[in-house]
């Protein structure tokens, strides 16, 4: 009467490592502009501010240098929101022009998870156009032609 094993073999690293894991998969290639709007004196803005900070880190910014992250501070106690303005190919794919998160009741981890689910998936796939061949690979390819590369080597 043994119960089959269920559960995890390794212990989880906690919320911080979960956030780190989500951050690694954030890809902003499909986004033109991100507008983070919040009222600093309102409640529940901590997650929005943390999200803004995480988007400004160099690694996330490097996924798309053309994407602008614009923080907007408002003073009328509006609930915080984050808007992603998509590029054209992403707009066609998602059939929307803009994605908006109402971040008042979401924590940082949930924001990142949603971002990965909806935004990172719209990043256009990159195709490798120019593959630089190493010398060994070139020799292998030209091996059939009878050592042509070696003969044409400069003195």
């Amino acid at each position, binding site marked *: 009467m043994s119960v089959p094993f269920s559960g995890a073999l390794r212990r989880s690293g906690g919320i911080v490592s979960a956030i780190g894991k989500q951050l690694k998969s954030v890809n902003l290639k499909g986004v033109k502009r991100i507008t983070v709007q919040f009222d*600093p*004196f*309102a*409640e529940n*803005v*901590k997650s929005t*501010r*943390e999200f*803004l*900070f995480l988007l*400004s*880190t*160099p690694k996330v910014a490097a996924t798309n240098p053309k994407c602008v992250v614009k*923080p907007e*501070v408002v*003073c009328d106690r509006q609930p915080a929101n984050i808007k992603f303005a998509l590029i054209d190919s992403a707009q066609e794919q998602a059939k929307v022009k803009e994605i908006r998160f109402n971040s008042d009741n979401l924590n940082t981890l949930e924001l990142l998870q949603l971002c990965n689910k909806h935004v990172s998936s719209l990043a256009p796939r990159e195709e490798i156009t120019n593959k630089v061949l190493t010398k060994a690979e070139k020799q292998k390819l030209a091996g059939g032609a009878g050592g042509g590369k070696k003969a044409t080597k400069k003195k």
Partner: protein
Amino acid sequence: MTSLIQRSLPLAKTSTPALQFLRFRGKINIQRPKAPHYERARVVAVTQPKYPEAPKAKSCFKTRAERTQQQQENPYNEIIAREVRNWLDHSRLVAFFHLNSITADDIFRVRVQLHKQNLHLKSYGSKIIEQAVKNTRYEAIVPLFHSNNCIVFSPDPQKTAAMLRIVRRVPQMVLLGGIVEETILSRNQLVDYAQMPGLQAAQAQLVQTLNQAPGNLIQQLQAHQNSFVRVLNVHAKNQDKEETPEST
């Protein structure tokens, strides 16, 4: 008398008891003590002190470390909190910023530029600010410190425009609000305050506005005299013009 002393002398004699030295040169063993004899172990087990545990309701959601160890608050925190209170009380201009990810080089450059204008850039954590500011009139600034932040202090509120000009060049610093002359201002209010003219200019404007109504009255009273003077001037000019062509 002496015989009494002599009789008590042997008892008064002190002699050291026989000493048997157990430790000689070698290192003593502390880390791997011998397992005690069963009887001794029983006595030790029975005589272990039992401390009353705190009621489970208080310690239910705490981790084991929190339950067993008592966290002492670092007294240095209080010193820093006092320093923050000092800065808040003696600066007539305080501005709060959200700080995005920024390199130390860039923040140093900003710090230098601000320092040249007598603006001081500081940053503190939310715990210290709460300790410094709780139950005071600055309590409303606590929600600004939940995330990465920095503060700019200045003894001179006229430097608001200069500060905003410097910070505009830094995209990582996001203005959240400020305190000017003991009034908490939101971001838009602070920007408006920076664009307002100085106190003297504002006073001059006020004086001008106050003088407008009586000035109007004076103008109307003197209207006839002024128009008469103007007409005479024109007439005099015409007469000069007529005289000079006649003379030539």
